[in-house]
C-alpha cells in the first residue's frame, strides 16, 4: 500500500510538472484571491 501510494504520488507530481500545472498554481496564488478575502 505504502509503495503504491509513493508511486501514485510521484506519477501525479511528474505528470503535473510535465503539464506545467505549477503555472496554474502561480497564476492563482499571485493575485489576491477574492474568495479567500470574502469578496468574490
Amino acid at each position: 500500500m505504502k509503495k503504491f501510494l509513493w508511486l501514485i504520488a510521484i506519477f501525479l507530481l511528474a505528470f503535473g510538472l510535465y503539464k506545467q500545472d505549477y503555472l496554474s498554481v502561480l497564476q492563482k496564488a499571485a493575485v489576491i484571491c477574492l474568495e479567500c478575502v470574502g469578496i468574490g
Partner: protein
Amino acid sequence: MQGRIWQGSSKQICVPGLNCYSCPGALGACPIGSLQSFMSGAVLRFPFYVLGLLILFGLILGRLICGWLCPFGLIQELLYKIPTPKFSKNAFTLKLTYLKYIIGVLFVLIIPLAFFAWNGVGIPAFCKYICPAGTLEAAIPLIALNPSLRSGLGIIFGWKFLLMLFTILISIFVYRPFCRFLCPLGAWYGLYNKLAIFGIQVDKAKCIGCDACVRNCKMDCQKVADRECINCGECIKACPTKAISFKQIK
C-alpha cells in the same frame, strides 16, 4: 506592508500547511486553495500536481505538518495558552472529529463540482465560505491596508468574519478546534499518519498499557499515532517507560 501580496515564482510551490496565498506574508501557495482553484472557474482540470504534492506531504510527514508547520495551528496553539478554564476532550468531541471529513468532501469536492455541473462555473467553496485562516491571514490585513477592497465587502465577508471570530474565541477554551473538527487538510494528512516517514512510534516491548499517553493527549487520539495525532510529542513526555519516541530515519 502595502496591501499587496508576493507575486514571485516561489508561489508555484504549495506549502504543506494551511497558509492562505493571499496573506501578504505568504511566499508559497496553500494546497487546499490550489486544489480548489483547479476545480473552480469555467474549465475543470484534474489537479495532478497539487494532488501529487498532497500525497507526498502525507507520506513524508503525515499530521506532523499540523503539529509543527501549520501557521493556523500555531495561532490556535498560542490562543489556548491564555490562562482560562479549558474544555477537555470527551465522547462528543471524538464524534465531532468526523466533521472535518464531511467538510472536506462537501466543500472541497462536491460543492465546487456541483456548481460546475449546475452553471458551468465551479466555486472554491471551502475558501469562500469556511476558511478562517484566509479571513485572518489575508482578508483582515488586505482590507486594512488596501482601501479599494473595502467597497466589495458584503454578506460573505460578514459570515467569514463571524466564523473566524468564533474560531478564535473557541480556541482560547478548546484545544485546536479548527484542526480537530473543521480542517480538511488535517483530515487528509491524518489518513497517512501510520504510513508517514516522520512521526511518533511506540515500542511495544516497553509499553505497559497504562494509557498515560492517551490521557495526556489534548487531541482526540484513541491511541498513539492514530488519525487524530498531530505528533506534538506530549505523549513522549507523559510515557513513564519511555516507550514512545519520534521515528528515526535508518
